[in-house]
């Protein structure tokens, strides 16, 4: 009757005597019954060394199987019933491990000591193991993932776990699990567990790409498709089309009992995050293509939906072309006058300061894709939006809770990847953003006191927390780059909500650690120093509430950043919510009490500074990074910079972070510094005092392109406000040779890239990428598995189009040369900007002359002009490009507008000094000829800059200059500049450019002294 009476039947010895399986299972069963649910029993058994025994028993019961024979494959899918004796032993061993791993973070170190992760992972293949075994093995991994996220700071090994799980051989097993057709509930739970693991662990390219290539994304899309079928939302006539294209076999049965829509969406969202290629892979999954094709749709009867018809006056026929069947499930959205964000961004005035939004947005996304915006636009025009987008909007509207968030998350990725039609932005603003805002508000509840120290959270509350953690992140990602969506979120009062989220996350806690349970024998402490690692328990973990709060800090900070991305008034509003002290504390690994400067001063006086620090816990790096991001966005508002930031001495913690051991944190800290060093900032002085210029110059020499980029950017800001002597000193510190290197990186770029690439793949243990880098032929032959060698599919134009697009996007996404080139270009842009700001000194023209001369002497004038001319040429990259590209042997690179602009402004400033310099510029015939080719540039900035330049060149200094001036005009006329300027004066679309051109032409014809 009494379980406590059961005495240890298993003697934990290293080498268990092989007995028959029946005996073993009887003992294991008793052991299982004793430990399930009882943490203390688990502890005692682990301290007795049970883990090694169990793992040994497990492995001894496993016959060394020949993996090559696939005969066993079919066995398990059908016979889920009886287990053989050895299988039963295995199952029981795994169940015991699962139960122990469920005990919490303190069991992690003994479990890892017996290598529980690799051991367990050898049992997850459904082709080699019975379903119960697979299920239990997956549960162990889940338990370990859960324990790891609750483990105390410093042992954040989720990435290690992800690396182990997403290895190629296991990806194959995961795939097999997901494609099982069985309706067995156990199989369904396996699928749910796999989805949940992907959603939790898959965060980086090195995991996302193998999962995509391994077919997991397609398998998940197929499960999603089964929900489309179950919900009855297949597009009319899709089946007919699918027949034609050979996709009919991809139409799945309706979703089975036990399948989870939310988890499936979440897993998909985790895989496609931050990549256009993977987003497209999802859209072009065969099952999705089969169910949601692009078909012209005419509603059977117009009558009941008369009000939905696009012909209704006032709605405007503009959106008619995008009216697919799926759109009839959504309410009509009136087209708004708000332009989409991208068009607004290009109109953003760009000054020599170049603190403009567009480039910063690029820098933020530079790691995602190397595509330049122009080619993206044409891409959108070629490929109409997939009906998946309206379907997802419909799902967001028709579901609730976590399904809603997960659907919105997938939708957001598609939106960010530019795979939605431009009209869709308005629909998102009206239909999705308010729902997400409401979701946050609904789940923002006070935490009851009983939960403070609770080690177990009821599933309802757990779900609420998960929603609350995830939604702000999704919302931030969604609204980040779109003004229209930000306005919508703002109207929902999201800034105030965010402030509350962040403040709640800093409510002090008594203790973040899991309390020890009461024990009947307190003095029996088995763990002594000499016992082996497998018997020693680790430190206790954190209570769930604490982990929740840390996640909320991250989410709330991300949302602050998202809302502060574009508009000054939102930044000011956020700052007025007293958020800054909380953000500042989030910069510290060990935060103190967030307080206003006044309170801080008072508490410092009383000497109770930093008392009870542990009440605020420990901020992991991701919180610190999110805080940097928030500060960067708020810091774009000058008024915030000059008031709130100054009051809170923001520069101090940021400066400290510049020397953080983690390079990602350094990069993010540097982005804050960029804004703090703007000329209007009052924090330049203290930062200089703290030696920021030295740090930045060091970082400009870093191997990490992100650091090079941001430090050059910061230096560019810094140099603008300097006196001549300071400027010269700074250039010396940066080393003129290095600056030249940075701006002339092109020729050497491909080589350095390759050495760099090798190095990084060597360090990287991801086999997939390794194989690709080492085997040239293999990289050529990426084949879209969607074709599946099906002749019908291969003949279908729809499928061919999809394949072509995927191949191109894959190239764009995964080609490291392309990525490195994008990095190099952004760095060049900043370095050229640095030169531009270096020589400018609007107040004292004489100083400017001095600076130009200094620059020439340091860099060499011919070399400088030579490099600048090189930048303006069209480059053809062939040698290495071929390796990665299947379709094109060479890549033609046109100079980018930003680069042209910076070069032009450098010349503008040189030409603005004395006639001698002007003569120097005019002598650069080749350079001017190249520039003349850009009068037709699509960028207004470039055209305006060119007008500036030629205005300066045609400028008449004094009477002595008259002769030279005439000569210059003649020179320019020879180059055909005059006629082009006249063309601008006549035809340019921009009024400002027309006016400037007019002035220049007049100056040419009748020079007057200015």
């Amino acid at each position, binding site marked *: 009757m*009494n379980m406590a009476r059961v005495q240890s039947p298993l003697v934990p010895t290293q080498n268990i005597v092989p007995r028959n399986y029946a005996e073993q299972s009887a003992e294991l069963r008793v052991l299982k019954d004793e430990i399930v649910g*009882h943490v203390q029993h688990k502890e005692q058994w682990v301290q007795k060394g049970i883990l090694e025994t169990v793992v040994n028993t497990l492995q001894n019961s496993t016959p060394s199987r020949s993996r090559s024979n696939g005969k066993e494959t079919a066995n398990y899918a059908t016979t889920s019933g009886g287990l053989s004796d050895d299988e039963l032993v295995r199952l029981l061993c795994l169940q015991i491990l699962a139960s122990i791993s*469920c005990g919490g973070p303190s069991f992690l170190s003994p479990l890892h000591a017996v290598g529980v992760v690799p051991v367990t992972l050898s049992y997850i293949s459904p082709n080699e193991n019975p379903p119960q075994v697979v299920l239990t093995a997956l549960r162990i991994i889940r338990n370990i993932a859960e324990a790891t996220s609750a483990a105390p700071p410093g042992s954040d090994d989720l990435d290690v776990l992800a690396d182990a799980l997403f290895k190629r051989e296991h990806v194959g097993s995961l795939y097999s699990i997901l494609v099982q057709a069985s309706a067995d*509930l156990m199989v369904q739970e396996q699928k749910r567990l796999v989805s949940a693991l992907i959603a939790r662990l898959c965060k980086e390219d090195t995991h996302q790409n193998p999962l995509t290539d391994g077919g997991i994304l397609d398998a998940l899309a197929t499960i999603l498709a089964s929900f489309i079928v179950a919900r009855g939302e297949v597009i009319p006539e899709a089946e007919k089309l699918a027949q034609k294209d050979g996709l009919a076999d991809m139409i799945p049965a309706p979703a089975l009992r036990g399948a989870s829509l939310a988890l499936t969406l979440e897993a998909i969202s985790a895989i496609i995050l931050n990549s256009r290629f993977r987003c497209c892979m999802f859209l072009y999954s065969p099952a999705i293509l089969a169910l949601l094709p692009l078909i012209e749709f005419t509603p059977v009867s117009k009558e009941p939906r008369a009000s939905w018809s696009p012909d209704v006056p006032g709605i405007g026929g503009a959106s008619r072309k995008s009216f697919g069947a799926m759109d009839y499930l959504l309410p009509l959205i009136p087209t708004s006058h708000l332009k989409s964000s991208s068009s607004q961004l290009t109109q953003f005035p760009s000054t020599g300061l170049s603190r403009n939004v567009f480039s910063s947005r690029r820098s933020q996304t530079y790691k995602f894709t190397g595509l330049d915006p122009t080619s993206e636009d044409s891409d959108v025009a070629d490929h109409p939006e997939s009906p998946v987008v309206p379907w997802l909007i419909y799902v967001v509207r028709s579901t609730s809770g976590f399904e809603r968030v997960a659907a919105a998350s997938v939708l957001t990725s598609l939106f960010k990847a530019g795979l939605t039609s431009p009209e869709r932005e308005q629909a998102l603003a009206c239909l999705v953003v308010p729902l997400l805002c409401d979701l946050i508000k609904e789940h923002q509840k006070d935490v009851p006191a009983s939960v403070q120290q609770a080690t177990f959270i009821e599933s309802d509350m757990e779900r609420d927390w998960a929603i609350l953690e995830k939604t702000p992140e999704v919302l931030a990602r969604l609204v980040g780059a779109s003004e229209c969506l930000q306005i919508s979120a703002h109207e929902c009062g999201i800034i105030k909500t965010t402030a509350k989220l962040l403040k709640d996350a800093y409510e002090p806690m008594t203790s973040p650690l899991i*309390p020890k349970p009461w024990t009947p024998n307190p003095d029996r402490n088995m763990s002594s120093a000499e016992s082996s690692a497998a018997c020693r328990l680790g430190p206790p973990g954190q209570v769930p509430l604490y982990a929740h709060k840390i996640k909320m800090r991250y989410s709330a900070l991300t949302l602050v950043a998202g809302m502060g991305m574009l508009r000054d008034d939102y930044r000011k509003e956020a700052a007025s919510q007293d958020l800054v002290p909380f953000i500042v504390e989030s910069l510290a690994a060990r935060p103190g009490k967030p307080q206003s400067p006044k309170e801080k001063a008072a508490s410092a006086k009383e000497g109770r500074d930093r008392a009870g620090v542990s009440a605020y816990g420990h901020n992991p790096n991701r919180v610190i990074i999110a805080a940097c991001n928030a500060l960067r966005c708020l810091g774009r508002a000058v008024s915030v910079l000059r008031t709130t930031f100054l009051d809170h001495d923001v520069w101090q913690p940021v400066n400290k972070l510049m020397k953080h051991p983690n390079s990602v944190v350094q990069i993010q800290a540097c982005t804050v510094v960029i804004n703090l060093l703007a000329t209007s900032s009052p924090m330049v002085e203290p930062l200089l005092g703290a030696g920021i210029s030295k740090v930045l110059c060091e970082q400009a020499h870093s191997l990490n392109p992100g650091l090079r980029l941001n430090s050059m950017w910061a230096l560019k800001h810094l140099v603008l406000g300097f006196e001549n002597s300071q400027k010269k000193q700074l250039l010396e510190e940066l080393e003129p040779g290095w600056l030249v290197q940075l701006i002339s990186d092109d020729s050497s770029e491909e080589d350095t890239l390759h050495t760099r690439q090798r190095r990084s793949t060597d360090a990287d243990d991801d086999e997939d990428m390794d194989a690709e880098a080492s085997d040239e032929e293999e990289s050529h032959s990426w084949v879209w598995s969607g074709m599946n060698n099906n002749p019908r599919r291969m003949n279908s134009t729809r499928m061919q189009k999809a394949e072509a697009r995927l191949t191109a996007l894959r190239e764009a996404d995964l080609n490291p040369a392309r990525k490195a080139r994008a990095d190099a270009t952004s760095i060049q842009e900043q370095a050229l900007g640095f030169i531009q700001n270096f020589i400018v000194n609007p107040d004292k023209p004489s100083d400017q002359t001095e600076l130009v001369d200094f620059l020439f002497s340091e860099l060499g004038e011919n070399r400088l002009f030579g490099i600048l001319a090189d930048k303006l040429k069209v480059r053809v990259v062939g040698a290495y490009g071929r390796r990665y590209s299947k379709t094109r042997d060479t890549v033609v690179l046109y100079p980018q507008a930003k680069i042209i602009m910076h070069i032009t402004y450098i010349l503008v400033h040189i030409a603005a000094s004395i006639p001698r310099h002007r003569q120097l510029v005019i002598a650069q015939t080749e350079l001017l000829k190249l520039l003349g080719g850009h009068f037709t540039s699509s960028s207004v900035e470039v055209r305006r800059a060119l007008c500036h330049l030629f205005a300066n060149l045609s400028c008449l200094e004094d009477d002595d200059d008259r002769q030279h001036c005439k000569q210059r005009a003649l020179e320019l006329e020879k180059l055909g500049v005059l006629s082009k300027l006249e063309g601008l004066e006549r035809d340019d679309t921009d009024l400002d450019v027309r006016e400037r051109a007019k002035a220049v032409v007049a100056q040419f014809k009748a020079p007057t002294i200015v």
Partner: protein
Amino acid sequence: MSNWQPYQQGHLDPDFAFREHIFAQFRQAAQRQSQAGPMNSSTSTATAKHAFEARLRDTKTPKNDINALILDYLTMEGYPGAAANFSKEANLAPQQEDPSIKTRQQIQHAIHSGDIETAITALNALDPDILDKNPELHFSLLRLQLVELIRQCNGGDIAPALDFATQQVAPRASMNEQFRTDLERAMSLLFFDHNTKLSPELQDLLSSDLRRRTATKVNEAVLVRQDQRREAAIRALVRMRAWAESSARSSKKKDLPSDIDIGLSDAVEFQELTETNGHEPMITT
């Protein structure tokens, strides 16, 4: 009926709602019958004339759907034999084969007969994850086991009960305020003669209702594990009907008969439903 309380998580006990509703119907039916016969017929004709009733009569419910609903109920609540017979009789494909249905029945039986250890072992054999991931359920079972032990030692040797409480229940209970209170209450049973008049809380612990509630919780937990659906579909339907009626009544348009019959006014039929609905028949074993 008074001892049916919403269970601890703060949800409405579905059993409670369901039965409450049916009993209300029952009371009304009984009231009608106890009233004078001719009056009864006159009221029924009056209500029958109501537009709503007419619409109700015109609505045809497919028999198959109703049968499926009944089969679902039998399967979910753990009556494998009845479910098998019913599906044969109603010519339905048996609902998805549920390997756990037998085990669930065994577990229920063990709990109802006070053999908690067997129930725990069976539950662990079915799926050890259930108790590991659901401390509340585990504690409920342990407490019930403790109560059973105390019941057994009534007046005799209390050592087994004390020992069990110390070794098994107390560590689990120490982590949670509510568990602690519950454990203390259960322990106080040791000090009283169970045949005397006890406080209602203690009486409650000794009543067979505790077994029944715990058994229901276990059944639901197993179902949630497998299916994410914890109760028979008919329960949701009944709740939906109650909600629909009350919201229809609170709306402005009160075009409804004064009371809407659930369709079980026939007393004989009704008796049967209450029989099969509860677990009472099983307890008698």
